[in-house]
């Protein structure tokens, strides 16, 4: 984490001057579980993509290709919504 700024350095009134900077704020460290994808099983229905509350499902050429771990919170929604017959996503404990 970068050094926290002093009161003399922070912008007046906490105004955020660079719009959309939430993208650079890494929140992936909050995870205790992480989603793991079984590429063989995935049918690219993109249900996980539309359901992820953190837009952390990475899609390329209309194919689900993995997770953005800078922002994925490990909530497990993707694993839950993946069709029961498919179950391409499983949740594993972080750090294992």
């Amino acid at each position, binding site marked *: 984490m970068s050094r926290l700024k002093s009161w003399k350095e*922070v*912008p007046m009134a906490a*105004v955020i001057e660079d719009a959309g900077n939430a993208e650079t704020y890494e929140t992936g460290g909050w995870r205790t579980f992480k989603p793991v994808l079984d590429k063989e099983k995935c049918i690219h229905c993109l249900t996980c993509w539309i359901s992820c509350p953190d837009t952390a499902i990475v899609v390329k050429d209309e194919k689900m290709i993995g997770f953005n771990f800078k922002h994925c919170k490990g909530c497990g929604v993707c694993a839950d919504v993946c069709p029961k017959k498919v179950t391409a996503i499983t949740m594993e404990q972080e750090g294992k």
Partner: protein
Amino acid sequence: MGQQVAMTGNIAVANAMRQINPDVCAAYPITPSTEIMQQFSNFVADGDVKTVLVPAESEHSAMSACIGAAAAGGRVMTATSSQGMALMWEMLYIAAGNRLPIVLAMSNRALSAPLNIHGDTSDAMGARDSGWIQFFSENAQEAYDNLIQAIRIAEHMDVRLPAMVGMDGFIISHSIESMTLLDDQAVQDFIGDCITHMPLLDVDNPKTFGPLDLQDYYIEHKRQEYEAMKNAKGVIVEVAKEFTELSGREYGLFEAYALDDAEIAIVALNSAAGTIKTVIDELRSTGVRAGLLKPRVFRPFPAEEIAEALSHVKAVCVMDRADGVNGTGGPLFPEFRSALYDAPKRPLIINRIFGLGGRDLGLHHVRDVYGELQKIAGTGKIETLAGYITVRN
């Protein structure tokens, strides 16, 4: 320069607003400040100003609209009193914390209950910790002059804080007095163009106002606000000097009337100072060394300057036209007493709460206070530290 006129305090303030010509005014009517916006809406309707007038559905909404307009980058003004100020309370802090230089004209009025529409400063005192600069005015001329200067002070880059300018409801807001209006162009030249900082309407540089600010940064932003309020002291004096060049009228952080060699003194805000000055002139002619310190600003609180101005006095009465209901005196009392705590020599200090709900302060009341101060100065003993006067016992 200028034009001698006869006006009520409210109309004088409305004329200051006309000459300032703000971008946006959002307001809701409340006695006794209603006349300000009523007159100002005439100016808007007549095309005398280019202001966008927003008649809001409450004072909370009025202040919210002011905040939005000021964040957008506009020069913004409003007016209120009493319950209106109380209803704005939540948004006052938002305006100050977001460092938006809104200027508010305030015809000071008592707070309910019991319901009362007349002058005291309980409305302003409720807002004293909100981060707003607070001016108080003895008469229509001062209210007019303070409002014009407030624009410059609030927008100053070392300050960027909202400012409220008070005068006593009815006693000043509705009494016609002789005063001088500056030329329209002179006011425009004095205030200059609105100084904006990170305006939302600079759409090429999108930004966010009012984000969540937690344990890691909230205190840094409050520390900045504290610095801004400290800076305001110097800026107020600087702007006052320029204003004197323009108008010939002198202003500072407070007015010291016959104070230099005073043995006894009163501290009082707003119109009471006029009554007190009359008694001082009378006492001085009989050799009594009586004086007055009339604060022009209560926020920032100029503690060092006050200590310097009062430390030679033997006995001081801080008079409050509001009661903080803490059981030990009005809101000015602890701050003035505390300002003198570090002075090498300090006066004996008492507090008298007076004139609540517009109860008249007569010359005889002031004479009694000075009489008591003379006794204290002579004996070195205080009988009643804090209490009410102008009340039926």
